[in-house]
């Protein structure tokens, strides 16, 4: 390997990109190549330092020289002066402003520093209801390219080469999907968008549709051209009213301005689309169920094959892509497959959007390069636990189809392959962070309640199986767990996975399997010791005050809704067990960690809990 003698840190912030970073970077690369310097001088794209008004800006290391207002025309001169003759190019040198701001820059704040926005490139920047503002940010330029300069095969090749995989969760290569559909012969084909975001805790797609509806439409136009579709449908759940409103406005504007309808942008390509409102059934996120739902039938999956690429909506070849996938098609076409692959890993290219929620400080929407360590997302971007005193326990990824990743695996890189190895799935991007006060059996139960509710009922293993598993989990959390329950849950899980038709049933047991895999001791303590160590399951916990730690501050005494705590100043407090309802309020109110969670007390005369 050649020795790198200089690093050129070019700002890739929105401001600098808009004022020309990509063009200057390409010109620099070419000039360095021409002068034979390409091997020793490396160009690196970095985050914004707040010099947007002077952009594009570039920092040259190791000298630490700062250049501003770079233009393509100045590049040859700059390279000659600085890198051949070895003296700073005066003309573009940055001049220090008189007063420096003390507000942190993007690079100072981990939440912003680690993010790269491709899907969310217009996030918070444009007015989502303005077509002109979308166009100002390169909007519909990719569609123009695709419609006038590219064949269907060109588009498919570009998307295939980029390596982008479906962001809905399964990670099927998008280019391949398009290729299958493009090869199907039919008088009518459909380009569909899946906006039926249903995972608890996930809100990526909603945010994209709300903040940048045109990015989805542009992706659909390009996809439609690739597969030869003339009609499209965006399937959105009705409980996203703002997203629906903004999408509809975007569609209306596009029709009026000739970006949808006959002969788009004066080309010979015609495509129109409409919104279909879903009623919020989780199963309708499954592609065949979604298509049936659009047809006006009850949303239920059907066996595949035939795959939708051959027989989809109205039995015509159809492609269904996720919102997040479609939103990044335009930049791939515009900047090329190689650009897309500059981020991510070999098999998981590009970026992924995550919705961070739960016990985490920075609840929000983030976009990061694939392959970033999970730890960086949780601790740097997410800012760690909301309650600093609590320890991180696990992060749930992939919603009801996914699983929990425990603390011990927090250093894995976030890619499709690495996440699957943990028993979770990448999913659509919901990340629910849980601290040490979380009961993992209750967590599994929460997701099973969801899937048992949302099972469409077509396959018995899913319909009845999820119900049986939910009952078992409920028993365990109520002190009625039995020896062998864990094994029975695992057996049942395997059967449901093997015999269900669609993704819902095939993945519904994942939350159980993954919590058993990493937190079997918690299941065991629930079943054998009648002890929910997090103090969440009321029937399996008792609370007591450790005298040595109690400062007699009275916080718990005031917080207790049952008046079950007695004590006075300077005298350690005490909980009257007969009155305690295990609501956990005292535990949360104590600043000194004096409240201890113990196993259930057998306070009634009935058969001891759990003995069957």
């Amino acid at each position, binding site marked *: 390997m050649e020795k790198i003698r200089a690093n050129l840190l070019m700002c890739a912030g929105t401001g600098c990109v808009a004022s020309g970073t990509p063009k200057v970077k390409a010109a620099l690369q070419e000039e360095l190549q021409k002068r034979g310097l390409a091997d020793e001088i490396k160009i690196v794209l970095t985050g914004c330092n707040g010099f947007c008004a002077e952009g594009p800006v570039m920092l040259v290391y190791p000298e630490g020289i700062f250049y501003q207002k770079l233009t393509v025309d100045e590049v040859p001169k700059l390279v000659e002066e600085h890198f051949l003759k070895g003296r700073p190019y005066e003309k573009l040198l940055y001049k220090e402003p008189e007063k420096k701001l003390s507000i942190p820059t993007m690079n100072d704040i981990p939440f912003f520093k680690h993010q790269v926005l491709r899907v*969310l490139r217009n996030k918070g920047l444009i007015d989502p209801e303005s077509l002109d503002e979308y166009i100002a940010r390169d909007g519909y330029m990719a569609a123009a390219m695709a419609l006038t300069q590219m064949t269907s095969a060109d588009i498919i090749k570009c998307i295939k080469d980029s390596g982008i995989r479906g962001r809905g969760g399964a990670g099927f290569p998008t280019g391949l999907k398009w290729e299958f559909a493009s090869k199907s012969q039919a008088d009518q084909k459909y380009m569909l968008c899946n906006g039926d975001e249903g995972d608890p805790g996930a809100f990526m797609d909603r945010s994209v549709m709300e903040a940048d509806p045109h990015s989805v439409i542009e992706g659909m136009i390009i996809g439609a051209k690739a597969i030869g579709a003339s009609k499209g449908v965006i399937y959105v759940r009705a409980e996203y009213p703002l997203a629906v409103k903004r999408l509809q406005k975007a569609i209306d504007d596009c029709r009026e301005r000739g970006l949808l309808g006959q002969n788009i942008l004066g080309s010979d390509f015609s495509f129109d689309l409409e919104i279909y409102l879903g009623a919020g059934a989780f199963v309708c996120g499954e592609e065949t169920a979604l298509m049936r739902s659009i047809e006006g039938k009850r949303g239920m999956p059907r066996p595949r094959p035939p795959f939708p690429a051959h027989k989809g909506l109205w039995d015509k070849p159809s492609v269904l892509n996720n919102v997040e996938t479609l939103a990044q098609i335009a930049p791939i076409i515009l900047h090329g497959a190689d650009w897309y692959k500059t981020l991510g890993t070999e098999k998981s290219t590009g970026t992924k959007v995550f919705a961070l929620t739960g016990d985490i400080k920075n609840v929000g929407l983030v976009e990061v390069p694939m392959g970033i360590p999970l730890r960086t997302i949780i601790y740097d971007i997410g800012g760690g636990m909301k309650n600093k005193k609590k320890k991180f326990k696990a992060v749930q990824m992939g919603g009801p189809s996914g699983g929990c990743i425990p603390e011990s695996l927090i250093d894995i890189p976030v890619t499709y392959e690495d996440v699957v190895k943990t028993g979770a799935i990448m999913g659509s991007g919901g990340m629910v962070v849980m601290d040490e006060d979380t009961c993992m059996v209750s967590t599994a139960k929460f997701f099973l309640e969801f899937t048992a509710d949302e099972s469409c009922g077509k396959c018995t293993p899913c319909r009845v199986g999820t119900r049986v598993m939910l009952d078992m989990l409920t028993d365990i959390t109520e002190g009625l767990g039995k020896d062998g329950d864990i094994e029975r849950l695992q057996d049942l899980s395997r059967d449901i996975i093997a015999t269900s038709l669609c993704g819902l049933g095939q993945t519904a047991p994942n939350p159980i399997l993954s919590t058993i895999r990493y937190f079997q001791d918690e299941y065991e303590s629930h079943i054998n010791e009648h002890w929910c160590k997090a103090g969440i399951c009321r029937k399996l916990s008792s609370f007591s005050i450790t005298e040595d730690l109690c400062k007699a501050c009275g916080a718990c005494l005031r917080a207790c809704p049952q008046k079950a705590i007695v004590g006075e100043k300077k005298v350690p407090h005490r909980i009257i067990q007969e009155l305690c309802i295990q609501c956990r309020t005292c535990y949360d109110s104590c600043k000194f960690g004096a409240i201890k969670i113990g196993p259930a007390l057998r306070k009634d005369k009935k058969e001891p809990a759990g003995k069957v």
Partner: protein
Amino acid sequence: MARLTIDDLKKIKEKQKSTFALREGGYRAKITVHMGTCGIAAGARELMTALLDEIAQAKVEDVITTTSGCAGLCAREPMATVEIMNKPPVKYGDLNGDRIREIFKEHVLGGNPLEKYALVVGSETTY
């Protein structure tokens, strides 16, 4: 309205770009209120009302307000971004009507970013 051609796209892009960069649009400052579902739920409309009121009271014509989607840091909503010509954008968080009025006076009219409410300066990495 006329159907767009590719040339029109380029023209719109150039024209709008100047407004974005606040170069030739005739505006000196732009305030973006982030109005995704999270922002609205946290009270973004109150910011908008307060801003429009302040602009009317101050009788300034070179300041525009606009809305946009979620700024990403939902935990700190309502948020707003203030951009003054030839200065990097400044994002503010945890706002309310009174705070945005203060920001309007200090930063937009006075030209001095209000450090106590500012989250970050600069723009996000997008390429």
